[in-house]
């Protein structure tokens, strides 16, 4: 009763303030409990020897110094960056081609946009389960087609060799994600006025002149933004390797998130996993910082 009386004694403005605060309170609580606290905890755990059960011990920065000697960690970092470097060009080139193809308002163009975008709404885990079967050496359709066309002498173990595994996984992820890049680039393309192209045409500019002197310079920011989003996604890659290759062959496809996962939830070395998470976070904050920087320019 006393509290109720206290609320009634507040002025209208004070009550507005309180109401507003109460409206955002649940969100703030969720974000604090499930984002801010875990963030601090990640660092805290990283300073400990932290098994799932049993005693945990403070060990300072030992987990971090252990990283330098962890050959698989270095290998995973390398692999993740190589994967990112290899997958980004095809996503962008194909994304740009698709965006250019569906740019003009010609008949049925909406249907094509939808078709190219459809794989984006499928989960990466599920699309990996689909592709691991398409690529299988025994029941997979790719091998069946290649064999029927006499393009290969015998069924290929696409996922069984490091080089081909990388290539076919890239193929599957490009299929799954290129529609997203297409839509971002499409928005950038559509923001360029037709008059610019028309006057360039009057001046006799061909396709590549227009591309290099109008389209690409004016889309610089869109491209940079799509690039950052795509790179972040690639650095965080996990599902496709966990499902399609299980990290093999010979541990050659263990991405950085996969190695964190293995250490934390298979070997239950959570302190060590947390230390790696902190490093990963540093890499990603730098990348996202770049994204925010690009966006700030706009206003």
């Amino acid at each position, binding site marked *: 009763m006393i509290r109720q009386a206290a609320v009634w004694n507040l002025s209208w403005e004070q009550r507005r303030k309180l109401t507003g605060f109460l409206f955002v309170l649940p969100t703030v609580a969720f974000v604090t409990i*499930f984002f801010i606290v875990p963030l601090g905890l990640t660092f805290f755990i990283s300073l400990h020897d932290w098994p799932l059960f049993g005693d945990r011990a403070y060990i300072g920065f030992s987990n971090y110094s252990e990283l330098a000697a962890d050959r698989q960690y270095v290998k995973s970092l390398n692999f993740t960056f190589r994967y990112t470097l290899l997958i980004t060009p095809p996503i962008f080139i194909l994304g740009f081609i698709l965006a250019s193809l569906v740019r003009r308002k010609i008949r049925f163009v909406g249907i094509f946009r939808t078709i190219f975008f459809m794989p984006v709404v499928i989960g990466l885990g599920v699309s990996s389960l689909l592709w691991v079967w398409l690529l299988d050496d025994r029941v997979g359709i790719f091998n069946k087609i290649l064999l029927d066309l006499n393009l290969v002498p015998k069924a290929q173990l696409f996922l069984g060799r490091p080089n081909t595994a990388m290539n076919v996984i890239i193929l599957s992820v490009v299929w799954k994600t290129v529609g997203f890049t297409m839509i*971002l680039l499409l928005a950038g393309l559509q923001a360029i006025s037709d008059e610019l192209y028309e006057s360039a045409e009057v001046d006799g500019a061909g396709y590549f002149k227009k591309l290099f002197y109008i389209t690409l310079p004016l889309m610089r920011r869109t491209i940079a933004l799509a690039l950052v989003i795509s790179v972040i996604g690639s650095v965080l890659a996990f*599902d496709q390797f966990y499902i399609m290759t299980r990290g093999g062959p010979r541990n050659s496809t263990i991405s950085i998130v996969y190695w964190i996962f293995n250490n934390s939830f298979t070997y239950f070395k959570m302190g060590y996993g947390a230390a790696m998470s902190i490093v990963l976070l540093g890499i990603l904050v730098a990348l996202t910082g770049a994204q925010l920087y690009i966006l700030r320019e706009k206003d």
Partner: protein
Amino acid sequence: MAATSPEKPQTLSGAMTQQEIRRLRRRALLWLRYLVLVILAVLFLFPIFWSFINSIKLPAEALAVPPTYLPTRISFDNYIELTTYGRAGEKGQDDLGLIQHVYNSTVVALITVIGSIVLSTLGGYGFARFNFPGKSVLFIMVLSTLMIPFQSILIPLFVMLVQVKLHDTLFGLALVYITFQLPFGIFLMRNSFLAVPHEIEESALLDGCSSLSILYRLMLRLVLPGIVTVAIFAFINSWNEFLAALIFMSDQDNFTLPVFLTMVRSGLWGTVNWGALQAGVIVSIIPSLAIFLALQRYYMDGLMGGAVKN
């Protein structure tokens, strides 16, 4: 006339032929564009189409080596096999297989959708329409979590959920998913509320309506497109999410659909039931795809609003 530069036709007849040539060229280019589009569309649709075709083959045919192209007979046995997949026969337990995991995924997705809608709407309204000390700090705090990939905080989330015994529960997983949705949801709903003119609430405020009833009776209708967008993203993201579900769920009965299908892919007794796996892939794809196709406009609005402008 041969020296005439194309951009400056000097006679009428020259202009005509130029125009005709240009028109013909444009027509040819249009057809070429359609040809390329159709080829690409077929390639893009092929994996989904092929998965569907195989899911309706007879189970034995779906396992054939080498595979057949078209099914000799249409059958839904792969789907039926998947409903009894798992621990059938073990300890005499009734394993519901597919249905259990579709149920798990649905429950998690629904809690995530409802939670995201309620929190984003309340929070978006609070951030858009009220002034209170610390508001901008809190808003920046919520949005800055967009920079933190959830992959980097899974260890403490797991440790915390274990502490409160919410790990390995659908509810605990949904709580985490709601949080993942919040930065985007708050951003979107705040913008939706900001777009509503102030005059609409003013008379109601003067009449002494409470803030909650203004939100419920007046505003909700006006920000409905934003709510739909939040709901679509919450559904699709939670339905598809794999890594957190893999980590938080340890009891097989609690596996969400993608985690369950990973188990099918690993195979029982060393053999993988490929037909059943593709049936599961199709069941996983249908809800996301149906929602996307039905509400594409809202999805694209959210994508542009969230990815490009936030």
